[in-house]
Every structure is written in structure tokens, then in C-alpha cells.
């Protein structure tokens, strides 16, 4: 219970910071919307639904990357990560709290992106929504860990995509598969497995990322 209370306090803090500073979510919303609009004009009129769905996943992935780049900005700029690391709570609570807040930001961005996608490109079905929801879990889990790793580096803006994009390939494979194939259940299962596996790895290894 104490662990969950710590996670709740840390996630609530991140949401409050965003509510005050508004420097992550508006950028994510603007980015995902403008990407979909640009794609709408880039794609030929007779392009397939497959191509449009692929582009949706590109937009989601890079929107997530934008949010992840800012994930530890407050902790980095103000050195607060030291204060959190020194607290007696389990250090993985920092990861989980941050991952939850990223999950909320992603969810909100997609609340705007999916209706916009439906408006420009066609219907959004339940499999696509399920794929996006599961992909969010994987992105938040892996992205938070990598964002914490990258934040310690001076080349963090360069390092994070280099670390994150290769690990996000299975998410894209699973997400696209769940959105366009005749057997989406297989890909949903794959995404679920990816999420579970990487959530455990990231949860267990976060302590070693934030301590020397």
C-alpha cells in the first residue's frame, strides 16, 4: 500500500507540474494533429487504408518520443532526481509514477489523434484502439526507463531516439499487425507479452539507472 501511495504521489506531482507548466501535452497534441494533417495532403487520394494506418503509428510513435524527451526535464533542470533517489521509498516507484503520467499524456494525445484519424482517413475499429492502448503501455514502460538513462547525458535529445526507436520496433509491428491483419488477436497477444516482459525488466532495472 505504501508503495502504491508513493507511486500515486509521484504521478500526481507530474500531472500537477504539467497542469502548471503546460510544456509537454500541448506540444504533443499539436504535433500529432499537424502530422495527421500533413499526411492527409502527402498521401495520394487513392492510397490504401494500410498506408494510412501505418502513418498513424508513425505519428503516435514520434508524438510519444516528444513527450518522453520532456519526461525528466523538471527533475534534470532542478536536480530534483537526487531528492527522489534519496527518499526511502522504493526507487522503482519513481519509474512507475513517471510511466503513469506519460501514459496519461499519451492517452490524451490519442483522444485527439484517433478522431482526427477517423475524420481524415476512415473508421477506427476496436482492434486499432486495443492496439494503441497496449502500445501505450509498452511505450510508457520502456520510454520512461530510457528517458531516465538519456537524461543523465548531455546528448539526451539525440540519445533518446537512438535508444528508444529500436526497442519500439516490436510495438510498431504489434500495433500495425493488430490494426490491419485478418488475425489481430495474435498481435494483441504479442503486444501484451511485450508490455509484460518489458514492464518487469524496466521496473527491476530502474534503480541501476538512477544511481551510480
Amino acid at each position, binding site marked *: 500500500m505504501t508503495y502504491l501511495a508513493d507511486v500515486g504521489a509521484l504521478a500526481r506531482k507530474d500531472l500537477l507540474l504539467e497542469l502548471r507548466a503546460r510544456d509537454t501535452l500541448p506540444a504533443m497534441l499539436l504535433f500529432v494533429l499537424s502530422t495527421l494533417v500533413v499526411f492527409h495532403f502527402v498521401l495520394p487520394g487513392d492510397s490504401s487504408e494500410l498506408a494510412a494506418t501505418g502513418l498513424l503509428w508513425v505519428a503516435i510513435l514520434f508524438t510519444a518520443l516528444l513527450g518522453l524527451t520532456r519526461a525528466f526535464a523538471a527533475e534534470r533542470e532542478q536536480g530534483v532526481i*537526487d531528492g527522489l533517489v534519496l527518499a526511502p521509498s522504493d526507487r522503482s516507484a519513481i519509474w512507475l509514477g513517471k510511466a503513469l503520467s506519460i501514459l496519461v499524456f499519451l492517452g490524451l494525445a490519442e483522444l485527439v489523434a484517433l478522431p482526427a484519424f477517423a475524420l481524415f482517413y476512415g473508421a477506427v475499429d476496436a482492434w486499432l484502439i486495443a492496439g494503441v492502448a497496449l502500445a501505450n503501455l509498452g511505450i510508457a514502460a520502456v520510454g520512461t526507463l530510457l528517458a531516465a538513462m538519456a537524461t543523465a547525458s548531455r546528448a539526451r535529445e539525440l540519445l533518446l531516439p537512438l535508444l528508444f526507436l529500436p526497442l519500439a520496433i516490436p510495438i510498431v509491428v504489434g500495433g500495425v499487425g493488430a490494426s490491419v491483419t485478418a488475425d489481430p488477436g495474435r498481435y494483441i497477444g504479442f503486444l501484451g507479452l511485450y508490455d509484460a516482459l518489458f514492464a518487469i525488466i524496466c521496473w527491476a532495472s530502474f534503480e541501476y539507472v538512477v544511481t*551510480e
Partner: protein
Amino acid sequence: MIRARGVEKRYGDKRVLRGIAFDVPRDGFLVVTGPNGSGKTTLLRLCVGLAVPTAGALEVTVPRGRIGFLGHEPLVYRELTAVENLDLYGRLYRVAERRERLGMLLERFGLWDARHERAGSYSRGMLQRLALCRVLLHSPELLILDEPYSGLDDEGTELLDRELEERREAAAFVVATHEPARIERLASARLALA
């Protein structure tokens, strides 16, 4: 509480500390002095567990939840108010009756009237006072303070003097400072870094 023997710290090829040895008993008060770049901050970060020695033995017997660390940064979120910052730390440090405790500290350090203002609007001195509230919130057994007087005005300096004196018997201290004369009367040991 702290036992250091032959502690060395390197960052790449650069050796920051070498052959450091000292003890800080339960009622100890170690004053660390030295010029800029001599490794005072590094030594304090080693003591608090934010860094690990490259060589030697450094044993800290106090659990990290019982340590209070004041660094160069106040370690507070600028977008949160003083109350919100201390409430967050109070939760993480499991401070009993944290609302009362943080209120008492804010009042003692003269921040009560500004308690609902964002830390980002605070002056350097107010941030240092808030950082001291954060450090003392959980009544630590071991206080590790890096330039605690930095940024404080006369009133803040007196407040800190009084706080250190009151806690002298109840906690152990490691204090890095450029003004050792100010805390000379409290010191039980000195460590001069070259």
C-alpha cells in the same frame, strides 16, 4: 555512523579525491573545508550514496531515509508551492503528521506567508530556507550539508545557527563550508581537502 578509509574518487582520468579517511560517530560534527574543486561536494555525495567511491571503503550505517542532504540545488520543483514540495517529500519520507510538521518548519524558517507561492518565484535565500525545511522535515539522524549558509541573509543565517545548535546532540553532521569559523564551536572533527 560514517567510517571512511582510503576513499578515492575518479571521474575518468581526473582524480577528485584520494586517501580520504575519517569517522563520524553518532554525535559527531565533521567540518569539511577546502578550496573550490577540492572535492567537498563529491565527498558529500559519496557519503549520501549519490556516488560510489572508485577505491577505498566508505561505510554509512544510517539508512537513507534517516539522512538529510542539502546540496547546491534546493531539490524542489519550481512549479510547485512550498507546501506541495514539502508534502511530496513528507509522503515519500513517511513523516508522521506531515502537515503539522511542514507547517511548523515553514513558520520557523519564515516561509509561512509564502507557503502557497511557487518555489520558482522564490529568491535564492528563500529557496535555501525551503531546502533546509526539506532536509529537516523527517528529523534525520545524519545531516549532510553542502554550504548551508549559501544565499542566506542575516536572519536566515541566525535561524540556521540556532537550528544546528538545537540539533547538535540529536544528530550527526557532515558540513562542507567556506566559512568554518561560523560553525567552529560545534565541530568535533575537521577535514581539510587540498
